[in-house]
Each structure stands twice: as structure tokens, then as C-alpha cells.
């Protein structure tokens, strides 16, 4: 008989990268369901397009690198990228938006840097920012929540809209985005920043129907759903609590201070937390291990930076939401954070 040589340790915890990634995309399912409840079935078509693009890109890269095409899905990281990007973009955006974004994320942001584990920037967010900067109109055209919309869309309508820009009845996206009163509706954050810039107070701005009763129609529940998924990930020890806690603290503390001093001109911390991509960003995007800091202390600082940047950009920046920019900026700071948050090794003076 033959004997097998292997390096120790011979025991191994059976949690593979694949499983970690699977948990991540399973945990966004509540968010996706809430999303489809408020914003229609578009999200499913976007997911489909994103996954298809991601698979083609991965397979092509594997081919070029001389590996088997089958290994494209092996570690499931591409799935996570595709899912996160599909959730982030407006669900009725034209089909080429998600295709371009996903292809850019996979090909340029991930593989040009050397593939899994080598990329500096979060692929989904880099793809998102590319889209936002290149196609601002499409990327800010969020559908209004179905509950406030004049017209309800069927799956076929949604498909028509995404593929051609018009529903079966011939309505354009712009027309569909009108509320019951016939005025085009923006997202809560977008609407609020526009109104604030029009010299309205926060209280006045919040009178619009989009805000509803709970942090904006749809958006509040969406954030709650992502929070739920995120807590599952923490419970399952897929992510550590340090990054989400950092993000939420970094966002809430300065926002609260500002709000206490100037409640008329600022966004309340509650709205900060429950609107936009806050929870998605804190639990699913900032926690991408490849581009985050590595030590627990570093992760917390990384989270704080993202939270603070989100708050700063939302308040004073040119874009309504800021998670993508904040994450990319914090990604750049990671080497410095890592350098200065390195834990003291055993026997180097921590305890004597």
C-alpha cells in the first residue's frame, strides 16, 4: 500500500471560501425580496443579466489564463460581485448599464489586478462608480415605489423597459417614474438634498409622499432587510462585527452632532441609517475581506472612515448617496490602516 505525504495541520475546518461567499449571497435574499416588493420585478432581471455577464467574463479570463472554464464559478466571488452590483443599481436601468458595470468590475477591477484576493478596490463599488460617473441619468433614475406609482408593471413590461426603454404600453421610464401627482419622484435622499438646496428646511422637505411614515417608502424596510441579513452573517461568523459597527458609528455620531446643532438643514441620523445604501454598504459591501483592513482594530477604523465619508458626502458632496465613493476611498487607505493597526505579537512587550 502507499502512504500519503501531507503537510500539517491535517485537520481542517470545513468552511471554504465558496461557503463563505454562498452565505453572503444567501444573506441578501431578504433584501432582494423587499426590493422587489417595493420596486418591482426589475431586480430579478438585473440579477440575471449581472450573473450572466459575470460568468461570461470569468470564463473568458480563465480561458485566457489557461485554466479550465469550469473553475470560473469555483470560489463564488464573482457571484457576490454580480449580486451586489445588481442590487445597487436602479432596478429599471437599461440592460447595458448592468452589463457594462459587471464586465468592468470583473475584468478590470478584479482580474487586471491579478484576480481574487489581489484587487485593491471593491469590484462591485468600482463598477457602480464607473456607471454613476458615466451615465448619471440612468443611474439616478430610481423607480418610484410601486405603492406610490400610477402604473403597475408586469414582468413582461419590466423586461421591455429594461431591454428597450419603453414598456409594452409605450411608456418611457421617465413617465413611469412620475408619482400619482404626475411629478417625477426621486429617492428620499435625492429629494431631500434637492429640497435643502432649494432653501427648504428638513421638516418641509420631509412632507413629500416619498418619505411616507418610515424613513422613506420602501427604503426603510429595504435597509431593515439588509440589516437582518447582515446580522445573520455576523452570527454565522462570516463577517466580524468590527466593520459594520465602525460604519454605523462613523455615520451616526457626526450626523447626530450636526443634526443637533442644525436640525433644519441636515439629515437626521435616523434617515441616514435607514435610507440609501447604508445597511447594504455596512454589512455587505464594506465587509468584502479582500479590500478591507485585516486586523480587528484596522477593520473598525476602516469602518469609521467609510461611515464618516458617507455622512460627509451626503451632506456636502455632489451626489445623493455616497457608499460607493466612501468604500473606494477607504480601500485606498487600507495599506496605511494595516500598517498602523498591526497587533503586537506575543512576546513583544504586550505583557511581560
Amino acid at each position, binding site marked *: *500500500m502507499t*502512504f500519503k*505525504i501531507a*503537510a500539517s495541520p491535517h485537520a481542517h475546518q470545513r468552511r471554504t471560501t465558496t461557503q463563505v461567499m454562498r452565505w453572503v449571497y444567501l444573506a441578501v435574499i431578504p433584501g432582494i425580496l423587499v426590493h422587489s416588493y417595493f420596486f418591482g420585478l426589475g431586480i430579478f432581471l438585473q440579477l440575471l443579466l449581472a450573473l450572466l455577464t459575470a460568468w461570461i467574463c470569468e470564463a473568458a479570463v480563465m480561458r485566457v489564463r489557461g485554466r479550465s472554464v469550469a473553475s470560473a464559478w469555483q470560489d463564488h466571488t464573482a457571484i457576490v460581485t454580480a449580486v451586489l452590483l445588481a442590487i445597487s443599481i436602479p432596478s429599471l436601468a437599461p440592460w447595458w448599464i448592468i452589463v457594462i458595470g459587471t464586465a468592468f468590475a470583473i475584468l478590470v477591477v478584479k482580474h487586471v489586478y491579478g484576480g481574487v484576493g489581489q484587487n485593491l478596490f471593491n469590484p462591485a463599488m468600482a463598477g457602480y462608480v464607473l456607471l454613476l460617473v458615466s451615465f448619471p441619468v440612468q443611474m439616478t433614475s430610481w423607480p418610484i415605489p410601486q405603492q406610490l406609482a400610477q402604473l403597475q408593471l408586469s414582468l413582461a413590461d419590466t423586461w421591455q423597459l429594461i431591454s428597450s426603454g419603453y414598456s409594452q404600453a409605450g411608456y418611457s421610464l421617465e413617465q413611469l417614474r412620475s408619482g400619482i401627482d404626475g411629478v417625477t419622484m426621486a429617492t428620499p435622499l435625492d429629494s431631500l438634498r434637492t429640497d435643502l438646496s432649494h432653501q427648504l428646511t428638513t421638516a418641509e422637505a420631509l412632507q413629500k409622499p416619498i418619505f411616507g411614515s418610515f424613513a422613506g417608502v420602501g427604503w426603510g424596510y429595504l435597509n431593515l432587510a439588509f440589516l437582518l441579513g447582515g446580522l445573520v452573517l455576523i452570527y454565522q461568523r462570516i463577517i466580524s462585527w468590527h466593520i459594520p459597527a465602525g460604519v454605523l458609528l462613523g455615520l451616526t455620531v457626526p450626523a447626530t452632532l450636526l443634526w443637533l446643532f442644525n436640525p433644519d438643514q441636515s439629515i437626521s441620523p435616523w434617515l441616514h441609517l435607514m435610507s440609501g445604501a447604508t445597511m447594504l454598504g455596512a454589512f455587505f459591501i464594506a465587509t468584502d475581506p479582500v479590500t478591507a483592513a485585516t486586523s480587528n482594530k484596522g477593520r473598525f477604523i476602516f469602518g469609521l472612515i467609510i461611515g464618516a465619508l458617507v455622512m460627509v458626502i451626503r451632506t456636502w458632496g455632489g451626489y445623493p448617496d455616497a457608499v460607493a465613493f466612501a468604500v473606494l476611498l477607504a480601500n485606498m487607505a487600507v495599506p496605511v490602516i494595516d500598517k498602523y493597526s498591526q497587533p503586537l505579537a506575543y512576546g513583544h512587550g504586550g505583557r511581560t
Partner: protein
Amino acid sequence: MSMLTAIIVLGVLALVFGLILGFAAVRFKVESDPIVDQIDAILPQTQCGQCGYPGCRPYAEAIANGDAINKCPPGGEATIKQLAELMGVEPQPLDAAHGTEDVKKVAVIREDECIGCTKCIQACPVDAILGAAKQMHTVIAHECTGCDLCVEPCPVDCIDMVPVPVRPENWQWNLEQIPVTVVESAK
């Protein structure tokens, strides 16, 4: 006139700064190994002469004077990389004209064939061969640098260069190279 003023002012300034620089050079002189010592420290000290110089130190001097850094086969890639870093040049592949990188070897004299001519003793750059005229010679294995210089002079060809054996103490954890015994069951 203004032209003259400018020239004088600039001249004086140049003089002043020159003096400051000169003073600084003396006052804050950095005590460091001369470059030849630093190069010599990187070279593997086999003293084999494959670079074309009679020993590592002369080659170090030659590098300091601008010779190529890729003439040392015993040092191989690692040495070239370190030299390139020190000299601030691009690493080059090993110059094949001077030999190729090989496993570390050590000289062994087949002692019953040795005639005691002392030629190898004279050739050895590190005095690693023991013996006297008409007496058998032997290599002090742990002092031998594997330079090969003793092989050529031996009139009876009784010196072999054998690879340094791998011992458990210096094993490099190459698990893939372990020969696995295949035991056929008796039953």
C-alpha cells in the same frame, strides 16, 4: 553695473553655499562600509574565480569600478538580485559565459589514489585541503567552498565534486520530493 552686481551676488552666494555644503560633508559624514566591502559581503566567497577574477574580493572591486554584476554562478539569481539592489541597477540574468548555477558541491579526494603531490593544496583558495608532500591529502569538508579549483591540477584525477548531502538538519521541507515506499501486502 547691475550685471556686475548680479554676478558678484551670485558668486558670493555660490561660495557661501559651497562652504556650507563642504562643512556639512565633513561634519555629517556618514560612516558606512566602502562599497567594495558591501559588495564583497554579498558575494558567496567561494573564491572560485569563475568570474574571471582571482577571488571574490577582486570581483567586488571590479563591480565597484563598473563591471557587470552577473558573472557569479555560485551566487546565482539571489546574489544578482542583491547586487542589483545595492548598485541601483536592473537585475540581469546570469552570464552563461561564466558558468551556470548548480547545486552546492564539496570536493572529496579518493584517498587511496592520492599520490601526495600537494598540487591541490596549492590550488585551494581557502586552505581547505590538508596534507604534505608524499602524504595522503584530504578535504576539510565544512571548509570547502566547492570552487572546483583543485580538480584541474590533480595529476591522477582523484578529486570528485559531490553534491552536499541533504540532512534532516538542513532539509528544506520539500514534501513533494519524498520518495514514498510502496509496501506490497504479504497477504
